[in-house]
């Protein structure tokens, strides 16, 4: 980076979906931006680039075409129930953001993405229908054509083609570990190059932290393990981004920032080891086949209420963690596997990833032969 510290209007820390979206908008507003990412340029796009690419939208064209009647009021009721919000407590920041989301998803998220060249599969899917608590009352999970990989590649293309591209400086391989204060104002950030460990500094009028979660550090996951899940299992696979390790959370806390609800996590119950691991305990999340029998470590069917995916993902984790050995088996056969077995994420859904409509149709009718 050189010895002269960079200066700009905003330094964005993290090149995932949030960092890239913010940068696009800041460039449109004529702001000078330095975007720092810890990973190499080929991995630009963060965890979102590896995701399946589903987005919750209330009031989409796809819902209307499928004659799904959805409203922000209905979505909010589902959200508050499923998230176990205290209905009497209306003044928390999570509650305010939940309301903002359901009221703005169509205008601020869905329309904006479409304007940037993102399209969705015609049929919204119905996930997290709710079990002990109420979940989604209607299908409102919209899958991006091209998966999360397509989403990020398209937005990155928008970035490189932005009319104000000259206002943006991109730096890869940069690990931020501290924020720079001037009195009580944050005026920049500092860190080291991942490759060379040479220090760097960026000075700015404002800093935007978009560095992902803490779930990439299994040590932190264990430290913040929720009480509902008893003690952390012996094996916890890593399905998060290896750089989402809480380094910048610590930096924010060091300047007085408030960290909340770190014990709340969206972990999955059906992880398997990746056969080409890129990080320690690298795991893949399977979409657990609905027609498979879910058994505990002894081969007994977990019950009395059987585990079935699509209703309450968190509850699957809770029920498995309640067993003496905190892992499980799914029992199925070839016919079930062909129809239902899938790996969640962009890597393994070639038809959607390659925008192949015929390929997707073929897979749905004839089965996932390519996976088996």
């Amino acid at each position, binding site marked *: 980076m050189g010895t002269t510290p960079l200066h700009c209007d905003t330094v964005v820390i993290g090149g995932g979906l949030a960092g890239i979206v913010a940068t696009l908008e800041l460039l449109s507003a004529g702001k000078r931006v330095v975007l720092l990412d810890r990973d190499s340029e080929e991995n630009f796009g963060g965890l979102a680039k590896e995701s399946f690419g589903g987005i919750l939208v209330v009031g989409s064209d796809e819902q209307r075409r499928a004659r799904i009647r959805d409203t922000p009021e209905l979505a909010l009721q589902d959200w508050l129930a499923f998230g176990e919000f205290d209905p009497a407590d209306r003044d928390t920041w999570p509650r305010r953001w939940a309301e903002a989301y359901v009221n703005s998803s169509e205008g601020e998220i869905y329309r904006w993405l479409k304007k940037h060249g993102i399209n969705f599969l015609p049929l919204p899917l119905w996930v997290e229908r709710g079990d002990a608590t109420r979940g989604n009352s209607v299908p409102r999970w919209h899958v991006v054509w091209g998966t999360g990989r397509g989403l990020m590649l398209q937005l990155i293309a928008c970035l490189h083609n932005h009319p104000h591209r000259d206002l943006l400086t991109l730096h890869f391989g940069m690990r931020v570990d501290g924020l720079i204060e001037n009195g009580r104002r944050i005026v920049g950030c500092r860190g080291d190059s991942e490759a060379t460990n040479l220090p760097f500094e960026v000075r700015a009028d404002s800093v935007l932290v978009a560095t992902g979660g803490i779930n990439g550090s299994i040590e932190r996951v264990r430290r913040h393990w929720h009480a509902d899940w008893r003690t952390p299992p012996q094996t916890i696979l890593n399905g998060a981004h290896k750089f989402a390790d809480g380094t910048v959370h610590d930096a924010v806390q060091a300047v007085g920032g408030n960290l909340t609800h770190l014990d709340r996590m969206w972990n999955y*119950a059906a992880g*398997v080891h990746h056969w080409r691991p890129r990080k320690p305990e690298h795991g893949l999340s399977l979409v657990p086949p609905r027609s498979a029998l879910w058994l505990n470590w002894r081969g007994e069917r977990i019950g009395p209420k059987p585990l079935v995916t699509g209703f309450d993902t968190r509850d699957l984790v809770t029920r498995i963690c309640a067993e003496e050995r905190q892992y499980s088996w799914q029992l199925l056969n070839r016919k079930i596997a062909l129809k239902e077995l899938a790996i969640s994420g962009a890597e393994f859904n070639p038809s959607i990833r390659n925008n192949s409509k015929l390929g997707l149709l073929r897979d749905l009718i004839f089965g996932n032969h390519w996976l088996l």
Partner: protein
Amino acid sequence: MVVASSLPELVDKMNGLQGDGSVNLSAVGEAASAYDRQIERGAPYDDEQLRRIALVRQWKGDRLRTCKFQKILEPKAGPLMAIREFIISRKSLGGIQTDLDSRVLDTRGEPIAGLYAAGEAAGFGGGGMNGLRGLEGTFLGGCVLTARRAAAALAR
């Protein structure tokens, strides 16, 4: 994952995979036969899993990807398979507390001048917008919304 043409062979392989003899053949056999018997008897189903399969098959998006009451031990549907599954870490639902402009708040609830947070780092908004569970799709969506709100505040 282990594959076998008979249940005893499958259970042997399951035990081979996980290192001791904990997987009990009669438990697995009973689970599978009881389930298959329910399917044989037909609707209405006593089994909650079969009722849920019936329910999800009512939505066309799910029907394409859900078998129609498939027996486990049906020979023509074989071979049998068993997958060992672990808890896998994925997303943080909590994080840096932010206001609706994505400004980072201190422990007294006051914004810290010059500091913003968006995406998963901010718990997708407010340090935990989803509460205890996410409805799914609010993570990518939350990244877009919190980022746009941050940029809008910075552009003002």
